């Protein structure tokens, strides 16, 4: 059992196992299930993630409200036809994240990871790493178990809900989960996974949740795109040997405390931030009528 990163890391070191293995062992014991069953269920989840991160790349998917959509396709076309500034990996990762977010806003099928609002980040990060590093589906599935372990620690010790902790709790946690997962997928140590997860959360500590019209669309999709980039660069930082000065458990605690200090207007209520700009207000009026 583990509730904190410190405990999970200790288990990794004592048993000389990877994070994914410890997370699976815990799940098998807690739910009296088998490794085979867990792998099957996660395989099904990976399939849905693959579909959602691809669906909007070659066709324009509009949201139910009509407010957003089509941006994943724009990015994918830009990537294919232009010399881009940030390069193939980054542009493709942003396109995949936007794709899932657009599928979500159009009432398509997604996997909440850890929430629907942040559902674009983990599929895109893990599938981008898979392409870049030529990994197998099995390795991506193990990555999803690492991500789940990191997410469990945040959910237990802080929150993954935007209404409680703002966007840092949703997109921040998703990026931390993704960063830690791809470090292990790239061959990094358990410690390096948690350094990466710390960086990802640190980078957007304090980010507010201010959806225009109260809808899971804008700026949510954009923050999924920046969230996957956050995950990728934090994984690289950790793989390069950069260490987080503050341990992950303390970073999670600071995220929780920042969330508690955040006014309610900036926690998913659409009563502050972008939601209450003149443009945000105008869109809200239009959507409600």
């Amino acid at each position: 059992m583990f509730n904190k990163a410190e405990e999970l890391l200790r288990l990794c070191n004592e048993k000389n196992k990877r994070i994914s293995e410890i997370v699976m062992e815990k799940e098998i014991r807690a739910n009296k299930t088998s490794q085979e069953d867990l792998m099957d269920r996660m395989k099904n989840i990976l399939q849905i993630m693959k579909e959602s991160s691809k669906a909007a790349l070659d066709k324009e998917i509009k949201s139910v409200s009509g407010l957003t959509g089509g941006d994943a396709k724009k990015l994918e076309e830009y990537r294919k036809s232009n010399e881009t500034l940030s390069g193939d990996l980054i542009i493709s990762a942003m396109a995949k994240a936007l794709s899932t977010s657009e599928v979500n806003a159009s009432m398509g099928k997604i996997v909440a990871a850890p929430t629907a609002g942040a559902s674009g980040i983990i599929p895109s990060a893990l599938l981008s790493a898979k392409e870049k590093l030529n990994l197998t589906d099995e390795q991506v599935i193990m990555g999803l178990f690492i991500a789940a372990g990191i997410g469990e620690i945040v959910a237990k010790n802080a929150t993954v809900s935007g209404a409680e902790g703002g966007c840092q709790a949703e997109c921040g946690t998703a990026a931390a989960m993704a960063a830690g997962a791809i470090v292990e997928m790239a061959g990094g140590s358990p410690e390096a996974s948690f350094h990466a997860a710390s960086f990802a959360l640190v980078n957007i500590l304090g980010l507010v949740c201010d959806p225009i019209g109260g809808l899971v669309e804008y700026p949510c999709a954009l923050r999924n795109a920046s969230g996957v980039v956050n995950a990728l660069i934090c994984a690289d930082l950790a793989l390069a040997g950069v260490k987080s000065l503050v341990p992950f458990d303390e970073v999670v605690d600071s995220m929780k405390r920042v969330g508690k200090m955040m006014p309610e207007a900036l926690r998913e209520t659409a009563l502050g931030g972008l939601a209450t700009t003149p443009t945000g207000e105008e869109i809200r009026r239009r959507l409600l009528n």
Partner: protein
Amino acid sequence: MADFGVFDIIGPVMIGPSSSHTAGAARIGKIARDILGTDFNRVIFYLHGSFAKTYKGHGTDKALVAGILGMGPSDENLRNSLELAKAQGIGYEFIETDLGYHHPNTVKIVFKSLDKKDAYIIGSSIGGGNVLITNINGNNVEFTGDYPTLLIKYYDQKGIISKITATLANNDINIATMKVSREDNIATMVVETDSAIENKVVEEIKGLEDIIYIKGINPIVR
């Protein structure tokens, strides 16, 4: 500290855009159908709080209608539910209202039919696809739809609770939670159990003296 499993964090698989506005709404609709039955031709949804303000943009309307048609929260036909309802000859209406002191994402679902009295439930979507049913036809209740659930009404007499619980125990069913309330001399009991409740158990309890009404519902998938 609440515990979380792997699939609470990487999951649920759902139809977007919001676990509380879509998945939770579909589950409340499905619970309404499971409790109130399929004998209806028109449904009125009274939307309270955030449900009233953002139901169109979030597709809460489509999710609710999908639920009363029997779809679960990961059914890809959910987005077509309004057309499907029309094709089945089921009318629907959404009314923004204030249901008093209720959770912000609350709906009262009223089933109408030609030959029966209106029937309704009130439920709230409390986050992450979790729901809480708080009222059925004027009876205050409290259950989540996560467990097999028995709803029982009976004339309040000594010993009835023990007869009901003995029937469950004899059928190897463990009770997870149980709540009893009373108005005049009629008691309402909600029992959530760990294992499925077969029809024969429901019939057995129905056969007990002083039972007015019993309904068993299955857990509503996420």
